[in-house]
């Protein structure tokens, strides 16, 4: 494996070699293809999209009307070819083992589509209001959540019981790359949703930012105090743990480790803990919030964004929550909430958190260098903020803004723009969500928790997360989001 992007010296370092930037390039490439629909030609409608089914021949079809002739097999083949070319170009520039990536990607892609189709069988997906249509008297009412849970479950089986195979697949099992690309696609969704409910989207963005700032100011000192006062951990380890548990998981652990000049081993150990705990949260929190917070769905989504660490697990948990809550609502009173708002509330909060980590790490570096360690002559370069800025956020906002411009400046193009937006924000976004679920499972090995000697860190993480972070996240989310309902689908 060639070593790449060894140093971040210039502002453009990593543009062609990092996953973060490649999620922007991948996301924007398909976004622009979708945007070309304003010319009247649909360039993205070939995406294969599974529907709720009982007859397998009707389980999958291309999303665009102009591509109906492709049929199920044709659309899957075109989808595979398009995304294999795109991801292999990315893998080539990131200097991954291209052969290993290609075969790993092919397996994960095929497995993901199989699980996506199975998870959309009416027995799993249908709810009270539509199960009769499929000739069923009983169904699980999971909506699209059934496919997500199935993908995670199968991924975890591979990751924990077929370790050599999981190791082979790890070259292509990249949940963070997939989810960051999906979040760029989500920008299209948010822009598309703004076409229908602009003020709600702005409220969500504003309250999400406020909630994030408040959560930061409460989470970090509290978690740091738990690590220092109760578990008597050293300062640097406490700081790294506090950031990982209270901010944004692995990226916060690495950023803080660098800011306080900790030995790299510390954030690496904490990161291993974060990844496993994030999957536990992903499994536990969506059903818990669904059973307790049905009256406040946006609060539940926002709290998820603040509580679940790593972008992949958070967006995945938000997507499962979205499916579970919408289907429960249908079962309760027949109301059909619009898809995507709960996911968006979870992701939007997380994106604000991701953006702040660079600034927070910069502040920590200043405090550590000038106040704690007091090393003479050391200066903290301001460029550190940029190097730690999550670049995929640029793609997310760019796609969002373009659709807002169409909405407000070029309203005549809205109808044509929607034709290209739907396959991207619905088909491609959900495909990359599904790839994320499968990949998270494949790279998560619970045995690491037993094998690694985490000691007190395990206790700090468990207590801080479940007795402090999750409850406070719910309170903060309630303060800023209570009363915000999900728009009803017509």
């Amino acid at each position, binding site marked *: 494996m060639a070593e790449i992007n060894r140093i971040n010296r210039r502002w453009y370092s990593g543009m062609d070699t990092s996953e973060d930037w490649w999620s922007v390039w991948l996301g924007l490439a398909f976004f622009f293809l979708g945007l070309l629909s304003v010319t009247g030609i649909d360039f993205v409608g070939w995406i294969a999209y599974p529907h709720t089914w009982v007859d397998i021949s009707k389980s999958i079809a291309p999303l665009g009307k102009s591509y109906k002739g492709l049929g199920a097999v044709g659309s899957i083949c075109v989808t595979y070819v398009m995304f294999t070319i795109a991801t292999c170009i990315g893998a080539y520039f990131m200097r991954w083992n291209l052969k290993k990536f290609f075969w790993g990607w092919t397996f994960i892609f095929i497995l993901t589509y199989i699980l996506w189709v199975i998870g959309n069988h009416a027995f799993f997906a249908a709810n009270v209001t539509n199960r009769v249509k499929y000739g069923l008297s009983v169904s699980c009412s999971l909506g699209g959540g059934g496919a997500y849970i199935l993908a995670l479950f199968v991924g975890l089986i591979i990751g924990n019981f077929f370790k050599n195979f999981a190791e082979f697949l790890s070259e292509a099992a990249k949940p963070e790359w997939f989810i960051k690309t999906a979040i760029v696609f989500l920008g299209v969704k948010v822009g598309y949703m703004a076409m229908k409910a602009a003020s709600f989207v702005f409220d969500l963005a504003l309250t999400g930012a406020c909630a994030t700032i408040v959560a930061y100011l409460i989470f970090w000192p509290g978690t740091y105090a738990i690590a220092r006062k109760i578990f008597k951990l050293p300062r640097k380890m406490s700081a790294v743990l506090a950031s990982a548990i209270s901010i944004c998981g692995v990226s916060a652990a690495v950023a803080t480790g660098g800011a306080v000049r900790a030995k790299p081993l510390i954030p*690496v150990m904490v990161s291993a803990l974060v990844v496993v705990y994030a999957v536990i949260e992903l499994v536990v929190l969506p059903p818990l919030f669904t059973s307790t917070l049905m009256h406040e769905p946006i609060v539940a989504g926002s709290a998820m964004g603040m509580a679940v660490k790593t972008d992949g697990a958070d967006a995945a948990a938000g997507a499962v929550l979205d499916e579970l809550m919408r289907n429960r609502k249908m079962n309760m009173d027949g109301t059909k909430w619009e898809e995507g708002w709960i996911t968006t509330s979870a992701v939007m909060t997380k994106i604000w958190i991701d953006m702040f980590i660079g600034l927070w790490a910069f502040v920590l570096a200043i405090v550590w260098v000038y106040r704690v360690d007091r090393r003479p*002559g050391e200066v903290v370069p301001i460029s550190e903020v940029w190097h730690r800025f999550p670049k995929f956020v640029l793609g997310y906002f760019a796609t969002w803004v373009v659709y807002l411009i169409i909405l407000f400046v070029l309203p005549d193009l809205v109808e044509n723009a929607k034709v290209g937006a739907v396959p991207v924000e619905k088909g491609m976004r959900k495909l990359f969500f599904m790839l994320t679920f499968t990949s998270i499972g494949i790279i998560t090995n619970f045995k690491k928790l037993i094998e690694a000697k985490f000691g007190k860190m395990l206790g700090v993480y468990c207590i801080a997360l479940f007795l402090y972070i999750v409850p406070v996240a719910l309170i903060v989310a309630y303060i800023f989001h209570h009363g915000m309902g999900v728009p009803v689908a017509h």
Partner: protein
Amino acid sequence: MIELIISHNGKSWTAKNDLLFAEAPTLEKLDSELERQLKHKGCLEKGEEVDLFMSFDNSIIPQWIRQYSQHYFNRIIRLRN
């Protein structure tokens, strides 16, 4: 400004470029060692000031973590004689 690549080998911090190589268990000692070498090589004369820009070698971050974060830290040390 003199540019170096800083890294950690599990026990010590290291800083190197074509001209310098220093290794020490703490960053303070690493900076002192670099200062000593610069003076010895005549790169830091009396009354002079020099900035050292140290870019972290991010390749030592395990590959599975790099998808989450690809930057550890860069630092600047201002040395005066």
